[in-house]
């Protein structure tokens, strides 16, 4: 997966490149609008991450010119301006998503993966599996090592999300938005409590813990690594 990052802020650009590279993406970094546009037109990318305010030409202009040339490359905008018209404008031009600065890297990574997953046939509609954990989506049943686990509807939804995106660190905001459709930052630790309860049902009594807390970032479904 190849990603183009156009970001003029030096540190931000470097960290985005490093972070995305370490997450397994091939990343090209352009420091201004012109360079970014040229790269986007000459190379093949799976996703472009554009800052809105750029020297040379703005992120909007890059997107406009890309779309004018029939380029369907998915675009995620980074904007410091929390303005409704900005969002509307970005989405009207055919942006796929946007993030308002300051954003957390975990959030960006999760959004990037969401966009890249689009258009691909979803893995399986009837069952999900990770290690010895099984999710029967049709009958809405969960079992681990053949042992039935009773979950509430929302716990089931939370586990389904973690399993569908196994190995990815999911930030709390993404979990709130995907599972409960709560698109605002709750000023409570409600996600932590929900995950803790789910964990007590899924991991308690088993040698290997599957739901991991990544401090400062979020949660991930992963077999605990031996320290």
């Amino acid at each position, binding site marked *: 997966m190849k990603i183009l990052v156009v970001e003029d802020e030096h540190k931000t650009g470097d960290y985005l490149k490093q972070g995305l590279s370490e997450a397994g993406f091939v990343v090209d970094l352009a420091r201004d609008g012109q360079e970014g546009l040229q790269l986007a037109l000459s190379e093949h990318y799976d996703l472009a991450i554009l800052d809105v305010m750029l020297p040379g030409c703005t992120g909007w202009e890059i997107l406009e010119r890309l779309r004018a040339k029939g380029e369907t490359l998915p675009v995620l905008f980074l904007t410091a301006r*929390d*303005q*409704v018209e900005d969002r509307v404008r970005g989405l009207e031009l055919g942006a796929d998503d946007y993030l*308002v600065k*300051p*954003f*957390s890297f975990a959030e960006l990574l999760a959004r990037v993966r969401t966009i890249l997953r689009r258009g691909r046939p979803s893995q399986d509609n009837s069952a999900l599996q990770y290690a010895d954990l099984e999710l029967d989506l049709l009958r809405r049943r969960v079992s681990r090592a053949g042992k039935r686990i009773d979950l*509430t509807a*929302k716990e089931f939804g939370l586990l389904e999300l973690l399993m569908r995106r196994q190995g990815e660190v999911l930030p709390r905001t993404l979990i*709130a938005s995907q599972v*409960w*459709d*709560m*698109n*605002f*930052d*709750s*000023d*409570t*630790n*409600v996600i932590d*409590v*929900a995950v803790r*309860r789910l964990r007590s049902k899924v991991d308690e009594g088993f040698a290997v813990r599957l739901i991991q807390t990544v*401090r*400062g*970032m979020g949660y991930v479904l992963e077999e605990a690594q031996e320290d």
Partner: protein
Amino acid sequence: MRRPTTLTFRLTVMFTLVSAAVLLGLGVLVAMATNKHFAELDRSYLEDKLQLLERIVGESVGSDDLARRLHAVQNSHQGLFLRLERDGAPIFKSAVVDFPAELGSDLEQSQVSEWQTGPLSLRGMGREMEVRNPLLGPAFEGRRLRIDVAVDTGIHAHFMTELRLQLLLYLVLAMIVSAHLGWWVVRSGLAPLRIMKNRAKDVSAHKLDQRMPIEAVPVELADLAHSLNAMLDRLQADFQRLMEFSSDLAHELRTPISNLLTQTQVSLAHPRQVEMYREILASNAEEFQRLARMISDMLYLAKTENDIELPHPEKVDLGQEVRALFDFYDALADEKQLRLNLSGAASVWGDKLMVRRAIGNLLSNAIRHAQPGTDVTVAVDERDGEKRVCVSNLGPTIDAAHIPRLFDRFYRVDKSRMHSEAEGTGLGLAITRAIMLAHRGAVSVTSGHGKTEFCLVFPREAAAQG
């Protein structure tokens, strides 16, 4: 660049021009009336003289007597000129004067003609008669006699010239006087404006409490003063808010940033275990997330307070929103053994995300402060067209002293809990209030006897739009 003229100057000029026009009209009228009066005087004088001459012709004994009497008339009337013709031949004529041939040809109308002879301006009329006086002898008796008289109008003309000159002089004088009077009147008339101007001059960022004097200005200006005062009120409130906002912001950011800085610098001062670094970075990340959330909350607050229109107005089922939020906070409530109850149903016209966030903030507050094992109740109802969502919990009563400031940004009842893990950014209730104001509604709070209740009130018109 052309400088715009002052209002005083313009009004003075207009005032002067108007009085000049009125005076000029009056002067012209006076001159015309006088002239007409003189013409009338001359006509009756001339008619009078014609009658006198007719009588003389009728009464004279012999042509010598006639000539003598005509001379006497001529001599006794200064400025009067005579001419008598018998069958087209002159028999008597005053010197100096030429009479036009066609003079007084219309007897009936006894028309007055005007003409010039040398330096003289003349007015004259004439009449024809048949002589019925046998004493005058056959040379006259039964013959047609023509009598013309004329009078010098030089005296009148002189008077008129004098009159016009005086009127003009008066006009100029009156204009000068009225210009001064006008300036004075305008100045005193505009005095309230000057008062307002001076007040306005005193207004600055540090002295926004100055107001226009409403009692001191006339009714027409009171409206303007009212509007200006309202504008100043808004400016002052906004400015105050802005100042508080920046100082709050600095204050709120100072502590976490100085913590982060200290922690990072202390960590850097000596080499440490990798685990230790990871721990520090994770702790920093959490702190940064809180800061990032505070910033996005503040941006949201600013946007909500500044936007006039709701972003996506639609019909929002309050009960449905509350149930969704119950689902979300279920784990949290369960941990404190709280029961979440909903009663009633209603729909409002609003922005779904905003309404959800407003209720969510109240609900999370209620759960946070509820006594474990009690009920948290959300009551939705409609009263007189007003839709209300009331969230109540049992727990510590909020001191009455805190109530008025509860919705201020960054206001915390318990200062010591400022940065505890579960505590929010201190913006939740401010955001809730801003959301309700954006819906033209309100948020209220009552607290007493261990029960605290927050109510969102959606006004009737917002409901009527749905």
